[in-house]
Each structure stands twice: as structure tokens, then as C-alpha cells.
């Protein structure tokens, strides 16, 4: 906290101030969004046609630029034809909050269409499983390799140049290859998450391991610790809080690969929902789905952060992040 709080909330305890600001950080953008959506004099660069009047190509519900609308209205007036009417509107890609909220609700309450359709929550659950397995598989190899590479210089120097190279290769580029090798269902999707996560994971965790205070290892050695026990008794517990934090960040990265991963093979998960709705310009549904992903990602990270504080009572950096 570098500069303290404004006077209005300065008298509150720090935890309350923090909570208030956290709520505010969400409320502010929502407020801006509401203002732009509901105050007709703010922005609203389009006119939504209500009555086409005499204009040939106008249709009810069409979005027209202000200038074009005015021009057409002028022409109609000159020709003595029926005037078009319309109300100020925002572009189609900025739906109002209540529309998104409604889409959010109806998304979950609309039963699946057709026999092979799925509920939105089933799509979501499918996506979460893709993330989960991708992350678990990546961690299964990435965490040990990272720790070993960070502990033993030789191993680190042996693996890191290649991994540094590989991590620049865009994971989505492996999509077609993943389908060829792993089939059309979840295999290639999980593989993309793994490819997107693994290489970063090894490097990040090796780096974290390197940052462990060397004195701790030396102290353990003078106390008689050798070999593998240095890793299990000192390195691992020593880096655990940071490793946990790294994993939380990496899990966030894994989520960012979800959308490209799910475009591969059969259409499934939340990505299918988003791309399909975007194709037909149902942006309120797209926003709703994006917000759902945000809630799941942010929510799970909050939970993990809270869990971290319980798991690592000695680690003071977990408390204030």
C-alpha cells in the first residue's frame, strides 16, 4: 500500500477497505457499461429502425449510422414519403447489461436442442475436464522436470535451451498434428493444453527452484542431508508455496489455451457455444459465456489462494497478494 486511502474510507479497518476496493474494481467497469448502454446521449452511434417509412432498404430492427439515417429521412421529407423512425442504439457488439444478464440466465435454463444437444452446464463441465486433465498431465512431467532442472545445473542446462525454443512454437499450430495422432475427441484438445502449459511450466518452476535460498540447502547438508533427501526434505518444502503460486498462474494460462484447444476435433465445450453464437452475431450470449469463464477462472483462483493460506501458514507472501 504505497499511498494509503482516501479519507472517505480511511477510518475503516484495512481488511474492510480492501474488500470495498475489490467490489469497486468490478462495479466501476459495470457502471461505465451501464452508462454507455442506458444513457442515450452517451455514444449510441447507431439508430435502430422502428418504422422503415418510405426507405426501401430499411427494416425494423436494422442498425443504421446516424448520418445515413438523417440523410434518408431528409430524402423522404423532400419526396414527401413516410418518414422513418428509430431510436439511438449501440453497435451489435455492445449489448446492454440486462441483455447479457438475461442471456446468462437463459443460457443455463434453455434445455438442449435436439437429441445430441447438451446443456450449457454440461458444455462447461466438459471444458473444465479438458483443462483439468491437460493441466494434470502437464504438471505430472513439468513439475518434476522443473524442480530437477532448477536443482541440478547440468540437467537444467541440458533441457532448457530446447524448451526455450519449443515454448515459442504456438500450441495451436499443433492442432492438426494432434488430431492425426490422438483422434478427434478430447485427446487432441488436452494435448494442446499440455503443449501450451508444459514448456512454460518447466521453465517457471526451474526458475522458482533456483530462487530457493542456497543457505537452506547448505544448512541441511551440514546437518547430514544428502542426495535425493535434499530434494524431498529441503528443496520441495522450501519452494512449495512458490510452486503453488506458480501453478495457480499456470492454471490461468491453461485456461487461455482452452478456446484454441476446443476448436480442434469435434466441436464441444464452451468454445463451441461461443464460436457458434458469435457466428450468428448473438453477442449477448458471447459476453455471457466469456463472463462465465471469467467467473470460473477467477473463482477457482480465489479458492486456491485461500487454500494456499491454510496450506502454508509459514509463508507470509501468500497473505497479501
Amino acid at each position, binding site marked *: 500500500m504505497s499511498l494509503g486511502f482516501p479519507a472517505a474510507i480511511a477510518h475503516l479497518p484495512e481488511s474492510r477497505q480492501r474488500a470495498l476496493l475489490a467490489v469497486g474494481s468490478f462495479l466501476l467497469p459495470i457502471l461505465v457499461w451501464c452508462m454507455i448502454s442506458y444513457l442515450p446521449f452517451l455514444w449510441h452511434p447507431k439508430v435502430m429502425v422502428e418504422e422503415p417509412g418510405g426507405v426501401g432498404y430499411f427494416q425494423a430492427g436494422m442498425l443504421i449510422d446516424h448520418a*445515413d439515417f438523417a440523410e434518408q429521412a431528409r430524402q423522404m421529407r423532400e419526396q414527401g414519403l413516410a418518414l422513418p423512425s428509430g431510436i439511438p442504439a449501440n453497435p451489435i457488439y455492445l449489448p446492454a447489461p440486462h441483455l447479457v444478464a438475461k442471456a446468462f440466465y437463459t443460457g443455463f435454463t434453455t434445455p438442449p*436442442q*435436439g437429441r445430441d444437444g447438451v446443456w450449457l452446464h454440461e458444455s462447461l463441465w466438459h471444458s473444465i475436464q479438458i483443462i483439468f486433465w491437460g493441466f494434470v498431465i502437464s504438471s505430472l512431467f513439468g513439475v518434476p522436470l522443473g524442480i530437477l532442472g532448477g536443482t541440478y545445473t547440468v540437467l537444467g542446462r541440458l533441457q532448457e535451451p530446447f524448451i526455450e525454443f519449443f515454448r515459442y512454437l504456438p500450441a495451436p499450430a499443433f492442432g492438426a498434428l494432434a488430431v*492425426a495422432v490422438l483422434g*478427434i475427441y478430447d485427446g487432441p484438445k488436452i494435448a494442446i493444453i499440455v503443449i501450451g502449459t508444459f514448456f512454460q511450466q518447466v521453465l517457471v518452476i526451474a526458475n522458482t527452484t533456483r530462487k530457493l535460498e542456497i543457505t537452506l540447502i547448505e544448512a541441511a547438508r551440514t546437518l547430514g542431508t544428502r542426495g535425493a533427501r535434499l530434494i524431498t526434505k529441503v528443496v520441495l518444502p522450501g519452494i512449495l508455496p512458490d510452486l503453488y503460486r506458480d501453478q495457480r498462474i499456470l492454471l490461468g494460462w491453461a485456461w487461455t489455451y482452452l478456446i484454441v484447444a476446443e476448436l*480442434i476435433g469435434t*466441436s464441444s465445450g464452451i468454445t463451441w457455444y461461443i*464460436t457458434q453464437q458469435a457466428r450468428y452475431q448473438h453477442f449477448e450470449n458471447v459476453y455471457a459465456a466469456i463472463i462465465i469463464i471469467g467467473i470460473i477462472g477467477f473463482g477457482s483462483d480465489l479458492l486456491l489462494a485461500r487454500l494456499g493460506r491454510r496450506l502454508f501458514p509459514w509463508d507470509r507472501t501468500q497473505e497479501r497478494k
Partner: protein
Amino acid sequence: MTKSKTSSAMKRWLARALLPIAAAACSFAAQAAQPLKIGYSDWPGWVAWQVAIEKDWFKAAGVDVKFEWFDYSASMDAFAAGKIDAVTMTNGDALVTGSGGAKSVMLMLTDYSNGNDMIVAKPGIKSLAELKGKKVALEQGLVEHLLLLNGLKKAGLKESDVKLVNVKTNETPQTLTAADISAIGAWQPVSGEAMKAVPGSKPIYTSADEPGLIYDVLAANPASVKARRDEWIKVLKVWDKVVAYINDPKTQPDAVKIMAGKSGVSPAEYLPLLKGTKLLSLEEGKKVYVKGSGFDSLYGSTKTVNEFNVAAGVYKKAENVDAYLDPSFTNAK
């Protein structure tokens, strides 16, 4: 008709380079007992299959079929990798996929675009001839490019008479708003969005003006075609039922409801898209699946696309068109 959407050069390159190897590794003999796997994607002529799926018509026909729902380009990737037996695509894309090594046989026609693909021009421009010396934005090498060339030829112009600007089809609506762009090429629903973006802009040339410029087909792996001929013929019989159900005014609302449900839009939104697509019954298909050089023949259309693809640099060496064409399934009694 690259119905969807993004085809990055990198992806294509990788697919070309790697997939034939993987495909060769997959033996079809081992899959004989498994259901026929067909990849389909979001285009009215293909979503039509959904009617048969929902109504259990394949079971009734005694054939074990599993439809897998894909993004269009992902469906061709899966086919190229040998992971599915057949895929719905355009005859042009069948050649493109085949040029990478994954050859296919076009078993039947599903439909042709009947107005869904279009060249949209700004207000005031009423014909292709007026585009002379102006800028036209479209995704080069794709079907709208072909559509434009076809139209220009009819209007007595050459490709060099217009200035082509290469943009992604999805970005054409914004592109049309630019001052120096006179027209764009896109398919529905993107073309519709472009017309909304520039009020007063109109389609000046569409696929309805040249029916059969591009055909949509069900193309299958040659090995599967040979090994499981009888089953494929049964699949085709089901198609007739589908087309009849969709075209019959009594059952059309139910069919549209099923198809719209699969695409995730309302039936009202879906109906215009269906109208821009001419579904072909087997009987109608037979008439197209005859030798000829015009666009009323699948042979003629495919030959034209082949030449176009080579000219546009999509692939270097012309494909052997005859190897892709086999009317015997469509004609089977």
C-alpha cells in the same frame, strides 16, 4: 465454400506436411466393424443430416452411422488425418484436401449454394461491370474469389480489371465500410452482416446467378468406399428422406426447428439461410452427376475449380478430377 472461417497458412502447411503420414498409418481394415464416421459442420446443406439423426432414420435403414460435429476446417483436418470415414465439404475443398494426400470420392451431392455466396457492392453500384478499376475485398483462393472471376467473365471483364484486396471473409463487413473499397465477397451470414454494416449496399452477383458454381458433397475415404459400398448406398437412401422432409411444407417447420437447434439460432433466423441453399435430392443429384463441361455438371464444376485452384496457387499441380468422381453411388438402385 469455406463455410467457416479461419484457415491460417501455418495450419494448412502443417496439415499438408504431416497429415498424409499419419493418415497412411491408419488402416481402414481394422475399422470395418465400427460405425461409419461422418464429419459435418454448420452449413444448411449439411446440418440437414441432423433431421435423419434425430429421427433415427439410419437405424431404420439398417446402417450404423456416427455423425461427428466439427468446425468446418477442423472437419477436413480430421478427414485428412484419417480419423473419420467421410466428411461434408465443397467439391473444391475436396480437391484441396486431396492435394495434401487425403484423396476422397464424392459419393453424392448435398446441395449447391443458391444465393448464400455473394459479391456485395456499395450503394450506387448496380452491376459487376461498374466495378472496373475499383477495389474489391475478399479472401483470395476461396469460393468468393471464384464467384467474382466467374461473374467478371460473364460481364466481359478480366481479373486484372479490378483491384483485389485480400481480407479474411469474417472481416469483410468492416472492410466494406472503408472509403476506397467498392465491394466485398462473402457468404451468409457474413454477407448479411456486411449489408447491415453499409446501409444501402446490395448483392450485385450471387451464387444464385450461377447455380452449381460450387457444389457441396459428401466425400468419403476411397478405402472405405471400396470396403463398405453397401453401407454407403444405404446412407444415401436416407438422404432422399431428409430432402423430402425439409422440402415438404407440412414438415418443413419441424425440420427447420431441428436444424436451427443444431446451429444454436432461432428457426426464424435460420429459414433465410436454408432458402439460400438448394438441397439436391438423389434424383436431382443424378442430373448433376453427369459428364459435362458447364456448371450444371459436377464434372464441369470440379474441373473449373481445379483450374482455379492451380491458377490461384492453392496447389501447384492439377488434381486428377476423375479419381474424385464416382456417380455409381448416386445412381445405385
